């Protein structure tokens, strides 16, 4: 069921945590805890993923074929414990791009209707 032939549109819209995770993974491989910390930092601590939510989302993305496990290795910044790293798949990339496009068109639509807001 994890086929890359699956329509990208079927996977949209992405939930905010998933969007952030995929976005982080476009910059390189990450392990779970690193993803969590990165998202926390990026969103000004607004999105604080619990382990259950984090691995639940990872599990789902693995099933959908958006990411794959790369290997287990220690995180040089943390400690010597081996951690599971995840890598974004080509499908994952396509999906994240499609989501960006979807958001952009939404924003454009809103701008046409509401007028371009003044920069704050």
């Amino acid at each position, binding site marked *: 069921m994890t086929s890359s032939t699956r329509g990208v549109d079927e996977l949209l819209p992405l939930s905010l945590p998933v969007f952030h995770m995929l976005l982080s993974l476009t910059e390189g491989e990450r392990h*779970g*805890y690193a993803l*969590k910390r990165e998202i926390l930092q990026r969103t000004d601590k607004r999105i*604080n*993923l*619990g*382990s*259950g*939510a*984090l*691995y*639940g989302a*990872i*599990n*789902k993305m693995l099933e959908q074929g958006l990411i794959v496990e790369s290997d287990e290795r220690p995180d040089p910044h*943390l400690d010597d*414990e081996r*951690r*599971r790293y995840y890598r974004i798949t080509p499908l994952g990339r396509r999906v994240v791009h499609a989501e960006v496009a979807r958001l952009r068109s939404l924003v454009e639509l809103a701008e046409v209707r509401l007028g371009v807001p003044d920069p704050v």
Partner: protein
Amino acid sequence: MVDVAKLYRKLLKLYPASFRQEYEGAMTRQFRDEQRDAKGWKENVGLWLHALSDIAVSAPRELVRELSQDSRFAVRVYRRRPLSAVIAIGTLALAVGASTGVFSVTSALLLRRLPFGDASRLVELSDSPFSAGNGRAGFAEWRSHNSYLESAATFSISEMNLNSGRDALRVRVTETSANLFSLLGVQAHLGRTFVQEEDRPGKNHVIVISHRLWQQAYGGNPFVIGSAAHLDGAALTIIGVAPPRFDYPGNVDVWSPTVFDFEVIPKHGAFIWQTIGRLRPGITMRQARQEFETDVARVNPKSLRPDSSSIPQLVGLRDQLSSQIRTSVLILFSVVLLVLMTALANVAQLLLSRTAERHQEFALRSALGASRSRLLQQLTVEATALTLSGAALGMIFAWLVARAAGTVMPAQLATQEYTLLDWHVLCFAIALALITGFTFGIMPTWLMGRIQPSTQIGRMNSVTSEPATGRLRSALVSLQVAFTLTLLVSSFTLGSAFLRLVHTDLGFEPANAVTLKVSLEGSRYQTGSAKWQYYSAVKERLQSIPGVNAVGAVNYLPLSNNVLMAGAIQVESGPKVPGVVLNGSMPGYFRAVGSGLIAGRDFGLDLTKSPEPPVIVNEAFARGSGFGPNIIGRRIIAPWTPRPYLVAGVVTTARMAGPEYEGGPQAYWPVEEEPPSALTFVASVSGDPRHYLAQCRDAVIGLDRNVPVYEAKTLDQSLNETMERPRFYTTSVLFLAALAFVIAVAGVYSTSSRAITQREHELGVRIALGASVQQIRTLILREGTVPVAFGILAGVAGAAGCGVFLQHLFVGIHISGVMAFVVPSLFLLLIAIGTAWAATTRVLVIDPIEAIRAEH
């Protein structure tokens, strides 16, 4: 110091197996990381709160996800062998349906609350000395001084004529103390109920009518409040309408606060006073009973002696209302449970063999790293999916069963109109399905024991050597057979008892008879001669209807639930015959009802004025007197008059209460002598009596519209009503036994056929070594028959034990002789052998070469 990460790891057990297996390590590690990064107690507390809320949200989500995955997989598994899945679901649906249906009735009768305010604290004081018999002041004095009741009400039920301007009606009336409604916590639907002082003489000329009567007799007219109605001639004012379906204490249409003032509504005959009460807050039933007994001992110590005919008792109102059929309902429920267990044994068989067949798959998955709990979860989901679908289908069946059972509920409770299928029942069905699913989902896995992947993978033929599951499967077959035999013997016993009832000679002929009642209470016919004139006119009118052959009338008609009064009658120069029911009849009655005259003759029209009026006795009386038919011409002395009666005839003994009960001695005196205020007319007709009902009724109503003509029905209808209960029990047990039988046969068949499939290799070897197909078939048959034989032995024992309980269902049930056991046992054994033999035809298609090759 507590290792909090360990605690967190424990919490992760809330996640489903697969998810846990995959991420438990990572999640625990991450928790440790976060713990390390947290500074100060505030951040630590925050971390925990966050972790807990995260688990609370994500664990159920993952569980649902994984369970739906497992369910989809389960569907695929079942699709591979759809027939056995369909059979299992169907079996379960029937069994769960039947047991849920019966449970719904059981729960309505025994478990649920009565539709009264705080009903658990309501009690009945049966045979108590505290009743309206003590007068208003006496009752009030006792009520205010007793220590266990907060309040108490007393009442008496009787039938009366209600005239309110239209055709007169016969209604059941409860004369009560004014506080009945407030005691039960029941409010009026319209108008009001009685106020406290309304049971005082002078204030009590008021009535509350039932919702049903309001609808039927008054068309739901709200202006009925304040209007007048006559009860047996007494003028009373309607002050309220009771809420819909309220008819306590049973089928009542009118309540009047006249229990302490019987003069208001004139009446004669015997009354039975009943008393109910509400327990004081904080007092237990046991304490209340003790204080009640002390109370009774003070007032009437004799009544508490064990030899007393009726011992005063304090019983919960619900128990009191359901007591008559409690045992029957529980027996029926147990019968249904037997069927359910037979069905569950089938499902267990299916799941067990499925597990055995998939041993390889599980060994492989286990070798590939699937945890034991992962496999357990999968099996449980598969089993639960099966049982839940069975239960869901079963609800439809349950609805039908509950409806069927509801029609034969005792009137007292049926009129309260419980919803039969509600959330209690739904919970029961779901619980049943889940428990079965869990049990049989987990049991096979437990039996699989510790799968050793390394040893199992190499062994392609793991299923042939599963002694544990094999033994369990045989035990299940034995159980099925035992339960089924118990049911078969029970239904055989019930069926033959029922047939005996049907063929019982009733002492009268219920076919072709129309019966109807008239009552002259409160009418203009009050003197003896006026009554006799009216009755004679009724008889004439009925006789003039074309097709009517004979007409007569009687005080107490058989099959009409009369409370019969019995006394001892002295036979001149003979013994005193005890327990004689005194009945009165009009000439022509015996011919109309089809009671044969054994000796002598019926009353003539000229006999009653003679100095020695005639009396007709029945056979039981004649036998009891010792004279037999020679009693004709002898005198008897009735208790109410010193004047002797001359026995003019002997008639067959009528079974007054129906075929279940022997008829007792009766003496019929001529009603002309002292016409009673009510009579039941019987007309025997040519052809279908139902066609005469309306005509007969109209003919009598036309005589005087102020006299109620009621209970117009055929005698066959009355017989049917009497037989309803035995018929219901017999049909249900027969039906359930048939169901269990089908289930068990399916079980035997599938066990034998699976035995062959799973031993194909071994059987192939045997054939290759020279065993004939017939020998193999005999071998399989013998192995299949052993558990059946054990089951039959256990079943015979079970059935013998059950016979005792069955006797509570209706009179005349007894497991008589060996036949009741032998016939069903042989039948079951032969069918089982036949089924197992049919299953062994699979052996014929075994190709030894293929069978051996397939295993290597």
